[in-house]
């Protein structure tokens, strides 16, 4: 495969090293000339100096025949523009961007760039499982805006003691599995009754995350008659 990497920082450098070792053809585009010299010295002539957000530079890098472009600079806005140039000018079939602010995943996705990787999100998902107060844990991001999440049912939730058929889930959400407070996994059916301390694993759209959390954790609505 021919792989163009925009950004020759630590991420770009080690990606290039791994990919070269796996016998791929790799080119790094890096703006800063001391870095270019450093990369050339350790990895050979697989680096080009220039601004990878510019169409002229991507053209010289042969983006038109690239199978894959990785935008891994430290700036979310630079990575976004590099991806959009690759997609709209050179029609690169597969594009992956590094993002720092996890909230930027949404704009990348809206603009058709599905492959985003965020170190911040990855680290958060590791530690979230150790933060007992966190009501919803994002386990895995899927394509098309879906993700797999885990929600712990608190004792005060309105759904405690009710079968799943009574739980009103948000649009495009599905409960996949339940691990009860004793640690036993269960495949849910419409008759499965929810208990306090259940860990519910569900598939949902990222924008429905908050509604799903509310459905499984909110206290019961008082009835006025």
């Amino acid at each position, binding site marked *: 495969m021919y792989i163009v990497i925009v950004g020759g920082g630590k991420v770009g450098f080690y990606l290039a090293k791994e990919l070269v070792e796996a016998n791929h053809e790799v080119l790094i585009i890096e703006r800063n000339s001391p870095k270019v010299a450093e990369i050339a010295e350790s990895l050979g002539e697989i680096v080009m100096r220039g601004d990878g*957000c*510019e*169409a002229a530079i991507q053209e010289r890098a042969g983006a038109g025949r690239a199978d894959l472009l990785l935008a891994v600079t430290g700036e*979310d*806005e630079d990575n976004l*523009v590099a991806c959009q140039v690759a997609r709209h000018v050179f029609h690169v079939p597969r594009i992956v961007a590094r993002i720092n602010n996890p909230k930027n995943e949404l*704009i990348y996705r809206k*603009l058709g760039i599905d492959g985003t990787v965020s170190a911040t999100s990855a680290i958060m998902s590791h530690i979230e499982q150790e933060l007992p107060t966190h009501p919803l844990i994002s386990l895995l991001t899927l394509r098309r805006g879906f993700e797999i999440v885990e929600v712990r049912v608190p004792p005060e939730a309105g759904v405690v003691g009710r079968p799943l058929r009574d739980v009103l889930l948000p649009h495009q959400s599905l409960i996949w599995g339940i691990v009860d407070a004793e640690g036993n996994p269960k495949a849910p059916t419409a008759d499965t009754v929810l208990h306090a301390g259940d860990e519910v694993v569900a598939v949902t759209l990222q924008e429905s995350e908050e509604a799903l959390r509310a459905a499984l954790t909110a206290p019961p609505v008082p009835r006025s008659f």
Partner: protein
Amino acid sequence: MRVIIMGCGRAGSLLAATLDEEGHDVTVLDINEYQFERFLPETFRGRTIRGNGIDQDILRKAGIERADAFVAATAGDNRNVMASQIAKHIFGVQRVVCRIYDPIREEMYHNLGLRTTSPTRVGARLLKEALEADEPPAGAPSGGGE
């Protein structure tokens, strides 16, 4: 009109002051607070917020959910492009204007549906027109003439 201007440099601040004078509700964003006192006139009645306009939380704080217009006028083309697309595609702002210095990038984003303007292209044209003008401006030295 409720307008948010990102970037309080020479152009952004002049636009902010002009719109404010015309009676619009103006909010100016910049990552450097010093820019507000450096460039905005003392008479400016709008709001100023320090922060990065590609951060959705900062944009919310600036009132983007109720804004009628958004102008991206920082010195960074990519930052302008990203903020404009966030304003348009995430917050649904009706009128989004994006400054892009690089004419090639400007053309691409114009074709992608952004309302863009390139001071480089406009500036070069004005310089060329000034260069080729028949009459030197009044009061200018007339030149020696051989």
